[in-house]
């Protein structure tokens, strides 16, 4: 912990405020460039293809019988997965009072919220009749129609709804003192804006006390919630009868995968933020070190569940399982993807065992991107090697995503990035008050 202390203690209070507020008020040409690229990219890769798809029909995708689920669902699961680590990690680290969490948790939580939003767009893009998007919500209507609460998709509606709400609240509660701090430093419309957001925060003892309570509640609440959300997402697949999907191990498998990919996502994001906002003094090698250790653990867990899945499938030795596994592991082109996934997720992360690698920013970036690529492939393979090998061999057919799907997939990343770019501009991206706490003045706090 002493090492940790060193990391940030030589920063003054004012410096913290200045750094964060500068990032919000002073807008350089670079920001506008990035924003413009994001908006144009979003329109080209996301908006237009989607409009085209709505106008012409789902037929412009590569979906077909029996692969009725394709890249959109892959992206959905992927983004839900990414969303996992942010809030979950933040909440766990908060409860365990881990100090190094402080400089990263805000952006991690934002990442959670934005990736849930991205995932939700995927659901609507996936719909055959997206103009009826509100039908899956249970609302009173003259038709006396109700939604089907038996459906795993309905579980999803609630799980994701709850999750996005509570992760937003978690993010928001934690930000209130900072929003107030920003309010006090800015002028013009910003003052009104942050004034409204800060909910009249004045920093009284009572307010701090209440905030602490609410925040702790959220943190405690969000841990089981996060586990349940990805379990429920896994049930979309596991509650079907399809070989390769109907697996009891899917819920933990998905949760582990989600935390894994989310942690890797945080590392990637940290590297980028650190460079882009020049926050090297807040995000230090300590963070990479700790998260690297976490990734090793997650990688081993991931490998374990994968081995279990393949082994039990192979051991059961039914035609259904055999064909699905064979298709996934030994049939081109999915075999290339499969073994790439294994390399990215099971082998490269083990390099983190070496401290040198953990502390190397470049290696961290590469490995974390690799993990996310691998995790995307994992979701893709789960769906796209099971559905083409359903029960009746006469209907087997390979899936080839169309350009629309690829484009929207790329667009989903741009969508996420855009949200994040806006976040960095409009929201204090680091916890000002907690970093101040971390600086250690005026007194040593317990729980280190």
């Amino acid at each position, binding site marked *: 912990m002493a090492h940790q202390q060193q990391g940030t203690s030589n920063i003054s209070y004012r410096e913290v405020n200045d750094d964060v507020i500068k990032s919000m008020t002073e807008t350089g040409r670079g920001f506008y460039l990035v924003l413009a690229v994001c908006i144009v990219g979003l329109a080209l890769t996301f908006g237009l293809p989607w409009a085209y798809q709505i106008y012409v029909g789902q037929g412009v995708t590569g979906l077909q019988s029996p692969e009725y689920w394709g890249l959109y669902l892959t992206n959905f699961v992927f983004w839900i997965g990414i969303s996992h680590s942010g809030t979950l990690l933040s909440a766990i680290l908060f409860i365990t009072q881990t100090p190094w969490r402080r400089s990263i948790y805000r952006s991690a939580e934002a990442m959670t919220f934005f990736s849930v939003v991205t995932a939700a767009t995927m659901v609507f893009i996936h719909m055959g009749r997206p103009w009826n998007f509100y039908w899956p919500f249970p609302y009173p*209507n*003259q*038709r*006396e*129609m109700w939604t089907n609460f038996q459906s795993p998709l309905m579980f999803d509606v609630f799980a994701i709804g709850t999750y996005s709400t509570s992760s937003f609240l978690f993010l928001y509660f934690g930000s209130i003192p900072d929003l107030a701090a920003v309010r006090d430093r800015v002028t013009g419309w910003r003052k009104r804006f942050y004034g409204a957001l800060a909910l009249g925060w004045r920093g009284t003892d009572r307010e701090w006390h209440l905030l602490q309570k609410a925040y702790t509640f959220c943190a405690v609440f969000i841990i089981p919630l996060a586990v349940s959300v990805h379990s429920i997402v896994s049930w979309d697949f596991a509650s079907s009868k399809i070989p390769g999907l109907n697996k009891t191990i899917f819920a933990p498998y998905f949760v582990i995968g989600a935390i894994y990919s989310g942690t890797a996502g945080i590392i990637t994001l940290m590297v980028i933020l650190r460079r882009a906002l020049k926050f090297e003094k807040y995000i230090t090698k300590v963070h990479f070190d700790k998260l690297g250790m976490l990734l090793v653990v997650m990688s081993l867990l991931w490998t374990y569940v994968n081995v279990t899945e393949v082994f039990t499938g192979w051991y059961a030795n039914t035609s259904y399982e055999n064909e699905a596994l064979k298709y996934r592991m030994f049939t081109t082109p999915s075999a290339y993807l499969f073994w790439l996934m294994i390399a990215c997720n099971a082998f490269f992360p083990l390099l983190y065992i070496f401290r040198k690698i953990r502390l190397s920013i470049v290696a961290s970036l590469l490995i974390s991107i690799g993990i996310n690529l691998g995790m995307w492939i994992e979701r893709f393979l789960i769906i796209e090697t099971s559905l083409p090998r359903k029960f009746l061999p006469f209907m087997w057919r390979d899936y080839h995503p169309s350009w629309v799907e690829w484009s929207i997939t790329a667009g989903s990343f741009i969508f996420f990035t855009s949200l994040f770019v806006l976040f960095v501009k409009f929201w204090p991206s680091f916890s000002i008050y907690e970093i101040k706490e971390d600086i250690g003045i005026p007194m040593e706090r317990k729980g280190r």
Partner: protein
Amino acid sequence: MKKFLVYVIVGVVTFTIGYNVNLIYFPDLSPKQPINFSHKIHAGDNSIPCQYCHIYADKSTVSGVPNVQRCIGCHKIIKQDAPEIQKLQGYWDRKETIPWVKVYNLPDFVYFSHKRHVKAGVPCQRCHGDVAKMDRITRQAVLFGIPYARVSPLKMGWCLDCHTNGAKEFIGMQVKNGRDCWTCHK
């Protein structure tokens, strides 16, 4: 400049809203017909039963628009010189049919059988309103000259109401499987 932009945006948005509100909430509820046919005179004043002219109502899914021959059958004798009857005569002489405008329109995905409802004893007025008081067929209910509601909403919930509770009035029980989607959908 900035203000002007605001006006443009507000204008465009409200324009779109106005346009769509009209299309969605203000359908033409009492369209003008090619001949000023009055149900009031026929069904009201002269109390001609509905099925005298809508001959298929108890035989088929559709009630049947009266064929021109049936109109002319009576009007060969009755009120030949009235201007509207002259129009009718004109259609008959030209061997043209009359392009009546549809007032009650169900979407393509709805199966509705006039026969079943007529045989169950549902009076026509239940859905079509008091036609005998209407000069021009309308779906707009009017009180003291002020339109206040629709004669019948023709919405799914409205159908279901009758299929569950309202039906007791006619057949003494709920409609059998009346809430099954494929009772009315196709």
